[in-house]
C-alpha cells in the first residue's frame, strides 16, 4: 500500500487544485463583500457550458474559454446588481436567500437551454505524464498550473494595483474606506468580475476533465465553503492551502480506508478545525467590538 503513497498524494493534489480553483473566487467575494455567493457554483457551471457550446461550434478551446470568462464576468456583475445590491442593507438572511435564488434561477435556465444530460468538453490537451513514481494527466497538470497562475494573478491585483488597494481597504474596514472616498461601486464591480472570472476559468478547465451538467456547481461550492473555513475566510493562501489539504485528505481516506468515507473524512476535519481553530489555518481571529 505504501508504494502507492506518492500516486495517491499526486491524486490528492490534483483533486485539491480543483477545489482551490473554485474556492478562490468564492473567498474573494465573501472576504471583501461578505456575500455568501452560492451562485458562484453557477458561474463555474456557465463557464463550462459556454466553453462547451463554443468548442462544439468549432472554436479553439482557449479562445472559447476566454470568451466564456468574459461573458461570465458580465453575468457576475449583473447578478450582483439584481440579486445582491438591492438587499445590501437587509439582514444577512435576506442575502443568503437571494444568493440561493440566483443560484436556482441560473441552474434552471441552463437546464432549459442545454438539458440535464451530462457531457464533457473535448479536452485541448490529452494524454498522461508517466514517471517511475506516479501518473498524472496533462489536463490535471494544467489545472494545477492554472491554480498557481490564478492565485498569483489575484495577489498581484490586490497588492500591486490601486484597485487592489481599494478592495483590501473595503475588506478591512468598509466604513473607513467609504470615508476615504473609495468608490464602493468600483470595488463591488471589480470584486464580482474577478470572482466570476475565477469561477468561469475553473468551470472551463474542469469541464474538460469532468462531466458538466446544470447542477454541477452545487457540490464544488459546498466543498469551496469547507475550503474557506479550513483556510480562513478571505485568505487567498488559505483558499489554496485549504483546497489542496481537503483534496489530499479525501484521497487518502478513499485510498487507504474506504471510498465511502471520503466525504465523512472531509467534513470531520471541518468540524475539528471549527472547534480547534475557528478562524482557519490562515485566518486571523477577530474581536467583535
Amino acid at each position, binding site marked *: 500500500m505504501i*508504494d*502507492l503513497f506518492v*500516486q*495517491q498524494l499526486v*491524486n*490528492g493534489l*490534483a*483533486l485539491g487544485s*480543483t477545489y482551490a480553483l473554485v474556492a478562490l473566487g468564492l473567498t474573494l467575494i465573501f472576504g471583501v463583500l461578505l456575500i455568501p455567493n452560492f451562485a458562484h457554483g453557477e458561474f463555474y457551471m456557465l463557464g463550462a457550458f459556454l466553453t462547451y457550446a463554443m468548442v462544439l461550434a468549432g472554436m479553439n478551446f482557449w479562445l472559447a474559454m476566454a470568451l466564456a470568462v468574459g461573458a461570465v464576468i458580465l453575468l457576475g456583475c449583473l447578478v450582483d446588481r439584481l440579486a445582491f445590491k438591492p438587499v445590501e442593507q437587509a439582514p444577512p438572511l435576506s442575502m443568503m436567500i437571494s444568493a440561493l435564488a440566483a443560484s436556482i434561477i441560473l441552474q434552471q435556465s441552463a*437546464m432549459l437551454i442545454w*438539458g*440535464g*444530460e*451530462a*457531457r*464533457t468538453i473535448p479536452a485541448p490537451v490529452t494524454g*498522461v505524464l508517466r514517471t517511475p513514481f506516479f*501518473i498524472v*494527466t496533462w489536463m490535471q497538470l494544467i489545472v494545477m498550473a492554472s491554480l498557481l497562475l490564478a492565485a498569483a494573478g489575484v495577489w498581484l491585483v490586490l497588492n500591486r494595483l490601486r484597485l487592489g488597494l481599494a478592495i483590501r481597504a473595503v475588506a478591512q474596514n468598509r466604513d473607513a474606506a467609504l470615508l476615504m472616498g473609495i468608490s464602493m461601486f468600483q470595488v463591488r464591480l471589480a470584486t464580482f468580475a474577478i470572482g466570476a472570472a475565477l469561477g468561469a476559468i475553473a468551470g472551463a478547465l*474542469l469541464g474538460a*476533465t*469532468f*462531466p458538466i*451538467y446544470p*447542477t*454541477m456547481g452545487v*457540490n464544488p461550492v459546498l466543498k469551496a465553503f469547507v475550503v474557506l473555513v479550513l483556510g480562513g475566510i478571505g485568505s487567498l493562501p488559505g483558499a489554496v492551502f485549504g483546497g489542496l489539504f481537503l483534496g489530499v485528505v*479525501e*484521497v*487518502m*481516506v*478513499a*485510498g487507504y480506508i474506504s*471510498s*465511502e468515507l*471520503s466525504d465523512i473524512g472531509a467534513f470531520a476535519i471541518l468540524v475539528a478545525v471549527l472547534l480547534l481553530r475557528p478562524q482557519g489555518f490562515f485566518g486571523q481571529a477577530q474581536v467583535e467590538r
Partner: protein
Amino acid sequence: MKPFSGIGAACALAMLATPLWADEIVVGDLHPITGPANFYGLPESRAIQLAVEEINAAGGLSVGGESHTFRIQTEDTQANPTVGVSALKKLVSSDVRFVIGPLSSGVGPALFPIIDRSDAITQIIDGTIAEGVTNGRNIFRNQATVSQYDVSVVALFKAKGYGSVTMMTDRFHAGFVGTQPALAASLKELGAEIAGEEGYKLGDTDFSATLTRVASRNPDVLLIRGYPAEGALITKQARQLGFEGQVVWEMVSPPSTVLKNISAAEMEGVYNCIPATTEDYIALGNEKAIALEEAYRARFNEPAGELSVLSYDAVHILKAAIEKAGSLENAAVNAALADLTVEEVPQLISDYVPGEGGQLFDDKGQVTLRSAVSVWQGEGWHPATDVIR
C-alpha cells in the same frame, strides 16, 4: 333530497363514468420528460406516442364489439420520487386507469405502495429495473430487473473465464446495491475472485484514489454498475491510471450520452451486460425494430432511445390485454394481463422468454428478457454474438 343535489350527483357519476364508456381510452404516460434522466424518458414517451398513433390509425381497439381509440396523458416525473408521486396523483384525479411507466429506480418504489393499494389503476412498467415493484395483480413490468442484468454478467464471465473482478457500484442505486451480494456469490461460483467492492455516488467526478487501488490489484475485470456519465469517467480515469484489464459496464447507456463523456477510442472493447436494447435489435436485423426506428427518425428527426422498444411494446401489451378482457374494467384487464401469452402480442419487438404456458408475465407480473451482452466497437454498442447468441 333537493333536486339540485340529485342532478349534481348524477353529473358527478356521469363524469366519473365517462372514461369507461367513452370511445377514448386514456393512457397515463409517466416518464421523466425533463430533468437529469430525460435522455432516457423522452424517447420512451415518444415511443408510446408512436405506438398509440399506429394503433389508432389501424382502427383502434375492439373492446366487447365496440371500437375505441387510445389517448395519451403525459405527466413528467423528472426522475424525482416526489414529483413522480404528484404526477401519478394528477393522473388518478383525471380518472386515468391505465399507466405506462415510470423510469427511474427512485420513482418506481415510491409509486408502488400507492398503485399496489388501488384497484382502479393498471400499471405496466417499461423503465425502472428496481426489484420488488411489481405484484402480478395490477402492476406488471416488461423491462428486466437488475437480477436479469446480472444474468448477462454471469454469462460473460462464463464465456470468457475471467479470474478476478473489482466491482464499482453506484451506492445510491438501490437495485444494483441490493443484488450485489448475489452477483458476487454467482461470480465466485464460477471461480472468479472478488478483488474489491467499491462504491461511488451519482455526480462524483474524481475516482483516482479508488482506481489507483484497483490498478494496483490488477483484476481481470473492472465491473461498473450505475449510470453512463460516471461509467465513462471511471473508464477514462482507470485507463489513465494504468488499468489494463477488461472494463465491463452494467447499465443502459445510449451511445450519444456515452460519447459526450468519453471518446470512442477509449470505449473500444468495453462490454455492456444488459438485455438487448433498441440498437441491438436494429443491429440484429429485427424488422419491427427497424420500422420503429424509421418512424421515430421521420417524426422526431433523431434516433430512437435505447428503451424505446420497451415503451412501444408496453402499449401493444396493454391493447392486447384490453381486447382479451373485452372490458375496460381494471380487474378484467389485470386478469387478462396475468394470462397474456407472448404469442398473443405479435407486435412485440423485444425478445421475451415465454413462461411455462407461454405467458408473458410470471406470477409477480415480471417478464423475462433474454440475456444479452454488447461490445463497444467504433461509434456504438454491437451485439457480442461470440458471448451470447
